[in-house]
């Protein structure tokens, strides 16, 4: 990658494995956002790996901004590969087929990089990275790793993203430097509710959950708000008593929140409230009426 020549020269002394903990200043800000569905797919792929396979790899699809500095990973698909002590084989044909198929559904999603499970980077990563770099020219390929073995200190599924830079005077494909780049999980409003639902199964021993009705959902939301209000009230009281030092940031936040509450004249509000209520009750009444009519029609049909 010519754009990063300066940076890579600077870090020549680091071997790929040791760079993992560093955040190397990039010549340009480079951000990666990942859609949760990608992480879920990777985990599913890992669960369905071959018996004797330690890790799995696959292609990441997504969109990037015009200058290539912001990448949004939206989708991915697995690619079968075979890895031994002294060689690695990736099913290229499969990769191409699958990409063609995905293109039919969503032509906007392009190859942006690849993923692998396991926290360690080894010499094969560099080779595969070389292949993907060629596929996404003139941009940089992203490499995303997920620590499915949970071997790290925090015992989390560490998601890390890297870009690569060539290393050495004569650029050999197996020599490259992986530079960590910041990575965020990002989702859309519609996905939010889905993720919330999945998260509700998080603490269940059976790992299952069922859909809840709108009413229950509302109750949950109100309870959460109540709890938050209590926490804030508790904190404010403590600050007033002097048992907790005041935090300006939090104070400013609270101020912001309170100023958002609209001030409405009482009579005005009464009017709005009542008209809304009437509208709603009317709609409900009419809807019930229609349903009753339908039910009667149904009975009549069966009687004839």
């Amino acid at each position, binding site marked *: 990658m010519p754009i990063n020549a300066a940076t890579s020269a600077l870090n020549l002394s680091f071997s790929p494995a040791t760079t993992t903990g560093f955040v190397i200043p990039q010549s340009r800000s480079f951000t990666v*956002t990942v859609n*949760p*569905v990608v*992480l*879920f*797919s990777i*985990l*599913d*792929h*890992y669960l*369905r790996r*071959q018996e004797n396979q330690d890790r799995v790899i696959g292609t990441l699809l997504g969109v990037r901004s015009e200058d290539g500095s912001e990448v949004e990973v*939206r989708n991915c698909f697995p690619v*079968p590969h075979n890895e031994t002590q002294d060689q690695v084989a990736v099913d290229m044909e*499969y990769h191409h*087929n699958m990409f063609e*198929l995905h293109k039919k*559904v*969503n032509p906007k999603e392009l190859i942006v990089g690849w993923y692998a499970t396991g926290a360690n980077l080894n010499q094969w990563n560099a080779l595969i990275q070389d292949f993907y770099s060629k596929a996404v020219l003139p941009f940089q390929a992203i490499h995303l790793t997920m620590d499915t073995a949970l071997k790290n200190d925090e015992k*989390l*599924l560490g*998601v890390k993203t890297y870009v690569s830079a060539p290393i050495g005077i004569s650029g050999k494909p197996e020599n490259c430097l992986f530079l960590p780049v910041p990575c965020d999980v990002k989702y859309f*409003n519609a*996905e*939010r*509710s*889905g*993720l919330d639902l*999945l998260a509700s*199964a*998080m603490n269940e021993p059976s*790992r*299952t*959950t*069922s*859909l809840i009705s*709108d*009413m229950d*959902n*509302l109750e949950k*939301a109100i309870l*959460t708000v109540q709890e*938050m209000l209590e926490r804030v009230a508790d904190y404010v009281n403590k600050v007033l008593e002097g048992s907790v030092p005041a935090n300006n*940031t*939090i104070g400013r936040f609270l101020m912001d929140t309170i100023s958002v509450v609209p001030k*409405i004249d009482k009579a005005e509000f009464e009017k709005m*409230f009542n008209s*809304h*209520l009437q*509208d*709603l009750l009317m*709609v409900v009444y009419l*809807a019930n009426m*229609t*349903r009753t009519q*339908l039910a009667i029609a*149904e009975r009549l*049909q*069966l009687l*004839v």
Partner: protein
Amino acid sequence: MASTAPATNSKDGLANLSLNVTAALDIEGTIPLESVQLDGLVVLKIIKHCREAFPATVSGQLLGLDISGVLEVTNCFPFPSSKSDDENELDVAKYQVEMMRCLREINVDHNPVGWYQSTYLGSFLTPNLIKTQYFYQQTFNNKSVVIIHDVSRSTHGNISLRAFRFTPSFMEVQKEGKFTNESLQKNKLTFSNMFEELPITIKNSHLVTALLHSLNEYEPLPTKALDKDKVEVPLTPNFDMLELSLDPYIEKNLELLLDSVEEFGQEQSNLAFWQRSYAREQTKIQQYMQKRKQENQSRQAAGLEPLPEEDINKLFKLPPEPSKLDSLLITSQINNYCKQLNQYAGPTLGKLFVVGELQK
């Protein structure tokens, strides 16, 4: 659901007898479906596909297995959105075969168990859906469902996923292919028993549970949180449900309801027209018959051969009875809208009163 289970079983007594034996090993596939279990991945994939294509409706294939009455959906893939008709259909078929082949290679359950479709405010009951679902249920021995995902409702903070399949009586009528009064009577089919809804549960794998916990560990930093445009941290509490702009949803719903009622009115006038023309033809036939009888009587009196009476069917053609399928669908749809309004009204009333209390 309980009432339909014996109905499907009693169709073949043999299966009923050996039910206990095969309950553990569902070799024959005789145990009827009772619920649908979705993998977390499937839920997210469906949401992603439907959201990206919104407001167009899209569909896709569900893959999985059925195990003793529970349909486990473990993966899915989207169908390319349809552009033109004929060649596209061929394309989709090819795409499906290719995709299944590819997925088999990476150990995904490659057994189709149904399909999903996105919808807008619950307006999913279309002739197309009927056609596709009928095809699925016929091919896969009644063990196939259609999952309906309502994008517009999911943005209100509560995801809307529903699993449907046809009841045996609807399958029977659809098989005969005629939706006349008579056949509807015979199978006791009305709008409320066309579909049955199956309960949906959602299951996460262990690794996914670990991932969710990892996402939850993300601590928001105060400096970061000050910036309001920043992406939200995963799994912070969701307050979409407390949104107070209630009118657009109800408005849209009522609009759709009105449209349906109008369509229904049209169906009714169609039916009335048919009835009138049917009655007219009937009287014509009767008149003709009477005339023929008189003629024959007079011919008999004159000692001549009576004229044949069989050719009435050739002379008069009774107008065919219009299919009741459309009106069934429309009634079902109207019922659906009304239900939705009612469902929505409950929490909305609650919200209104909460706001009322807050203002005091």
